[in-house]
């Protein structure tokens, strides 16, 4: 959706954002390096690999797992992660009996420090509308079908808590070390659209 722009050259929204930034910079109200730093942070430093490392640590260290479920913010902080949109993190544990799914129906609340910025589909009207009404139907579109006796819990992040799912450790991974385990964990596992 780029406002129906098809021609060459900058689109109307590109021009508008550039106009805003250049005027603010010219007036000395902001500096470009601050904007650069934000972009770099989310393109380079903060993304779902952070969350995957948290999950892998919880899989190999039962004490850490316990701290993570009791106080997500502090336990995630132990690994060096935290900050904006992660000031109060709650980690939801998937088990053989329970599956968790996270959404924000009002806007796009998401645990930035562990998952980075949300993907477009998470912010889409379809996901926001449907995840709370027909979570199994939505998961099925991601190829996920929890057994009928699994309890589905949907979490609508509507206030200040941000949620992240601790997925089940896959069978047959006893020999893997922490980095190898982290490589198995995807953003979609930690949102819960994939089990």
């Amino acid at each position, binding site marked *: *959706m*780029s406002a129906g722009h098809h021609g060459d050259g900058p689109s*109307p*929204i*590109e*021009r*508008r*954002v*550039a106009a*805003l*930034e*250049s*005027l*603010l*910079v*010219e*007036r*000395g109200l*902001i*500096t*470009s*390096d*601050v*904007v650069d*730093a*934000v*972009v770099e*942070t989310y393109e380079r430093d903060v993304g779902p690999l952070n969350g995957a490392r948290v999950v892998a640590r919880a899989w190999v260290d039962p004490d850490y797992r316990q701290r993570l479920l009791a*106080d997500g*913010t502090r336990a995630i902080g*132990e690994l060096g992660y*935290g*900050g*904006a949109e992660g*000031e*109060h993190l*709650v980690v939801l544990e998937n088990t053989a009996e329970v599956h968790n799914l996270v959404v924000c*129906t*009002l806007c*796009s609340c998401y645990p930035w420090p562990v998952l980075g910025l949300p993907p477009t*589909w998470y912010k889409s*009207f*379809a996901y926001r*509308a*449907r995840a*709370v*009404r*027909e*979570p199994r139907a939505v998961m099925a*579109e991601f190829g996920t079908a929890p057994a009928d006796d699994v309890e*589905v*819990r*949907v979490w*609508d*992040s*509507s*206030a*200040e*808590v941000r949620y992240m799912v601790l997925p089940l450790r896959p069978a047959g991974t006893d020999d893997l070390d922490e980095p190898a385990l982290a490589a198995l964990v995807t953003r*979609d596992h930690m949102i819960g659209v994939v089990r």
Partner: protein
Amino acid sequence: MGGMHGFGPVEPEVDEPVFHAPWEGRTIGLMIATGARGVRTGSIRPAIEAIDPAAYLASSYYERWALAVETQVVAGGALTSAEIDERAAAGDVERIRSDATDPDLVAVLRAALDGPCEPSGSPVAARFAVGDRVTVDRMAPAGHHRCPRYVRGVTGDVVRVPGGWPPPGDEGEPEATYTVRFALPDLWGDDAEPGWLFIDLWERYLS
């Protein structure tokens, strides 16, 4: 949006980049930079919600953010719409950067966006306790709020009391919030999928 029909399937994009075009990254950078420098007024969500409904539905996510940032910068008096219009019409997208830097703010922001923090949420008096049955008030607020329509009038159980935060639209003293659990059939009817909905609500929305 919760519960609405007609938006079709959820469509994930394979190997989606963080930003699809540089202007999207500049938009979130501007949002944070202008907020940190006090160049815009108010918080971002009310400004996004105030976008004309037809424009809201027709815009992409970062287009809505860009519009909200611009609206707040104008509201704060730093720039006028007319000068942004004029600059955008000139289309001079290269003339953005300056040599001025702000290393102190860069360091502050890097720590604030990417570093351990103390859990937020104040210990405040709470009317309800874990296990209490609560009903969401029926209401139709015109301004910014954080109580989705689809839970109004429905009864559920308090499962957690995470702490207090300033309520939306009234950024004053912290007020207790509750994680409330609802059965999906209580929200959507007897033919709903089985399961539970958990949602965080400020005390003012509950009875």
